């Protein structure tokens, strides 16, 4: 997450993340309407957006979020069922909040009209009613005798969230938002029990907002002679640490405001900058709470005895009030202590720009180290060679650490596609289940950002062109609901991302015919099935008879391929008629630094990504068949590919050459090079326009001594080589 100087921008960014969470929860609820965790998650996201938005006076956003939140409060309390309508409305509300977020309170009229319409529909679902009210109503529905709670039951259901000895280390669900501590004073009206309200349920609900220190006061309870046995005399101070915000706290008491006194005072900001552990003195707390008059405190201070005892002795205050003020003092001190520890030992937010700079600097440092080592070896300077070796471990750790800091789970990318698939399916009248696997797999943040558009296009294609309509699927003997599987997994230093559908598959012959019709290939070209399928990546190719508003947006699979290749990755298609299609994207874990083997071809330097290398072989020692360009590689027939010939250089003696055996997980092939140097770590620079279209080259690097080298596109070479050997 970026950290902005402008707090409003920081709020917007956090709110967008919360909206993503909300969308994820809604999509989960669509699959499993009984998933209580998702209901809680949706409620929390809305609650936090509302609370934080309030700090920036985003009245329209706050008011709208409150209505949506209250719908989910009712769902949480079992008063409104999870339905398709609720999910749909929730998603529309989510989009509306996103739009309000972008425009602030200067929302266009159209947007406001849209909001008003949504509000109506939300109110019909019970929006606008308060969560606390729903709770209290449900619990006290037994009539005026309410207020009753079985002693063994109430504590058992609430002890986890609101107990007098709760400590600030109870993690709040909204730990992402800044936590603040409030003193909530709740003095119920004497007729509270008669209205059927149980104050303990309100305290329970308050405790659910965070961690709470509950302190009850009995000083208003009269003697038996003068008491009304059905009146409520007990009152409370609750010290609550929560990220929910003052509005959410007040909302808990919304139905008792008329006959009770409720005040909410911020007593600890929870600010990172507030490093003062100490809290208010006892006297300050008592005066602030209104327990004693300032004048009485002043008089008692003069006695120089223990203040609390003096105040009680003089009859200014009851012992329980003094004790509760001391408890509050200890509680806030503990929070502050803990915050200091947490803030100094856990995590901090760093902007992605800074992380990018760090990775680039480390990359440059890696190159510099390689240069140093190279020069030391050239000069045979033992002292510097030893220093270079010592530095190597440090450089490696630094490199790994900087790369690791840049890694994020692909879940942030994948989860966004749930909504896409759902909406597409609805638009196209198809039934589609999206299966997500391996969402915990991590990739470079920049890679993930760049993958969004290509994946979006592939998934759109799967749903639009790949999957059949329910009727067609039934007719074909398939489940009317199609499946799109989105999976990620590690493969060496790469991540494979697969988008597979169980649709009608791609007709390779039809692809070939279309390509010939468009002049991409000669009409009589002889192509393998794989080559035919690869034609979908040709510029301008489209198999759709008519472009739909879903896929036909002028972006073809050629652009997808180019974007993946820009990332140093590859894309491959496999398809079986009537069974489905699978697109596999092979993506390097990180863009910044690669480790490769440096080879020479015709005087030039070429880097081969170590992730592909199986072994290096001296050709002199190998039995080979020069005509068929194959060697006997430990009993296995291995085709090899002469890179001199491929790049158009004059041939050289094969016996004097080296063979680098590479594999792209599917095929193994030998790449013939003149000679091999050491392993080399370097930063990849983007290619100039001149090299962009050179087949077999994926990037450029600068070697330690400043010499340029080209990065081989091994995956492409393996495929081209394999085809060439076949011919």
């Amino acid at each position, binding site marked *: 997450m970026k950290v902005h100087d402008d707090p409003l921008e920081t709020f917007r960014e956090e709110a967008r993340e919360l909206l993503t969470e909300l969308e994820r929860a809604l999509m989960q609820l669509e699959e499993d309407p009984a998933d209580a965790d998702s209901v809680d998650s949706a409620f929390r996201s809305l609650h936090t957006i509302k609370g934080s938005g309030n700090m920036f006076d985003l009245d329209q956003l706050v008011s709208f979020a409150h209505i949506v939140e209250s719908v989910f409060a009712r769902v949480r309390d079992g008063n409104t069922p999870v339905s398709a309508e609720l999910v749909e409305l929730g998603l529309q509300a989510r989009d509306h909040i996103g739009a309000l977020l972008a425009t602030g309170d200067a929302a266009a009229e159209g947007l406001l009209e849209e909001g008003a319409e949504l509000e109506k529909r939300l109110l019909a679902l019970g929006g606008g009613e308060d969560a606390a009210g729903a709770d209290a109503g449900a619990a006290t529905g037994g009539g005026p005798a309410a*207020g009753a709670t079985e002693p063994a039951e109430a504590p058992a259901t609430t002890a986890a969230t609101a107990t007098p000895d709760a400590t600030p280390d109870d993690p709040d669900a909204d730990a992402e938002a800044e936590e603040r501590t409030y003193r909530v004073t709740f003095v119920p009206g004497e007729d509270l029990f008669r209205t059927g309200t149980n104050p303990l349920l309100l305290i329970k609900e308050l405790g659910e907002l965070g961690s709470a220190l509950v302190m009850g006061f009995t000083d208003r309870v009269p*003697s038996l002679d003068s008491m009304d046995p059905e009146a409520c005399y007990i009152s409370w101070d609750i010290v609550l640490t929560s990220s929910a915000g003052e509005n959410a706290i007040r909302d808990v008491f919304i139905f008792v405001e008329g006959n009770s006194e409720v005040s909410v005072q911020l007593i600890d900001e929870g600010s990172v900058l507030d490093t003062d552990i100490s809290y208010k003195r006892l006297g300050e707390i008592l005066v602030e709470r209104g327990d004693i008059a300032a004048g009485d405190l002043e008089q008692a201070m003069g006695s120089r005895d223990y203040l609390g005892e003096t105040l009680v002795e003089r009859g200014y205050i009851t012992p329980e009030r003094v004790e509760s003020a001391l408890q509050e003092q200890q509680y806030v001190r503990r929070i502050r202590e803990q915050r200091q520890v947490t803030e100094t030992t856990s995590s901090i937010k760093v902007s992605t720009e800074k992380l990018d700079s760090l990775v680039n600097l480390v990359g440059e440092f890696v190159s510099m180290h390689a240069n140093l080592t190279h020069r030391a070896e050239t000069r045979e300077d033992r002292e510097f060679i030893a220093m270079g070796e010592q530095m190597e471990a440090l450089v490696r750790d630094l490199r790994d650490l900087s790369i690791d800091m840049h890694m994020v789970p692909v879940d942030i990318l994948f989860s966004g596609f749930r909504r896409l698939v759902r909406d597409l399916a609805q638009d196209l009248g198809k039934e589609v289940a999206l299966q997500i696997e391996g969402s915990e797999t991590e990739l470079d943040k920049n890679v993930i950002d760049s993958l969004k558009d290509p994946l979006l296009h592939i998934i759109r294609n799967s749903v639009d062109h790949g999957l059949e309509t329910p009727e067609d699927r039934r007719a074909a003997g398939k489940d009317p609901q199609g499946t799109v599987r989105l999976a990620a997994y590690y493969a060496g230093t790469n991540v494979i991302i697969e988008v597979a559908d169980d649709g009608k598959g791609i007709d390779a012959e039809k692809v070939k015919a279309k390509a010939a019709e468009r002049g991409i290939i000669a009409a009589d070209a002889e192509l393998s099935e794989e080559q035919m399928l690869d034609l979908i990546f040709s510029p301008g190719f489209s198999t759709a008879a008519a472009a739909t508003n879903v896929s036909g947006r002028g972006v073809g699979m050629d652009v997808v391929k180019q974007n993946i290749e820009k990332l140093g990755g590859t894309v491959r298609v496999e398809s079986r008629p009537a069974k489905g299609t699978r697109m596999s994207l092979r993506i390097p874990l990180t863009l910044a630094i690669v480790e490769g083997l440096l080879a020479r071809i015709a005087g030039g330097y070429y880097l081969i990504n170590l992730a592909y290398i199986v072994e290096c072989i001296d050709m002199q020692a190998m039995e080979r068949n020069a005509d068929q360009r194959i060697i006997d590689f430990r009993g296995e027939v291995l085709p090899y590919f002469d890179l001199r010939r491929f790049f158009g250089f004059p041939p050289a003696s094969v016996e004097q050459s080296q063979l680098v055996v590479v594999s792209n997980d599917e095929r193994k092939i030998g790449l013939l090079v003149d000679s091999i140097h050491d392993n080399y770590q370097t930063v990849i620079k983007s290619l100039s326009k001149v090299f962009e279209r050179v087949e077999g080259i994926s990037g450029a690097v600068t070697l330690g001594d400043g010499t340029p080298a080209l990065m081989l596109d091994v995956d492409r070479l393996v495929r081209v080589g394999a085809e060439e050997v076949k011919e």
Partner: protein
Amino acid sequence: MASSRFDAGVAPPTLSIEDELSFQTAADIRVSLMDAFDRASGELRIDVSAVGSFDLTGAQLLYAAGRTAEERGIELTVEYGGNAERFAKFYRFAGLKPLGGEAAD
């Protein structure tokens, strides 16, 4: 259902409250408590070990009894017996100090 029994023949004199100590029975229990205070001299025990259900209204009655005892100079004890843990949980949840100090803490 309100059910209480005063036994002046034991030491200290004891008011035993059974079944329910709640909003529904608060008015009756208050009368029983006042009667017990009138009959007690110097000492009084309230026995809630046989109470089945209990709520905030019931707790208030006990606190009111405590206040009355203070005013009348009567030494009041509350016997929680097997209910000690249940009462203690309730008091903890409500942020209240147990009256009589015998509820498990």
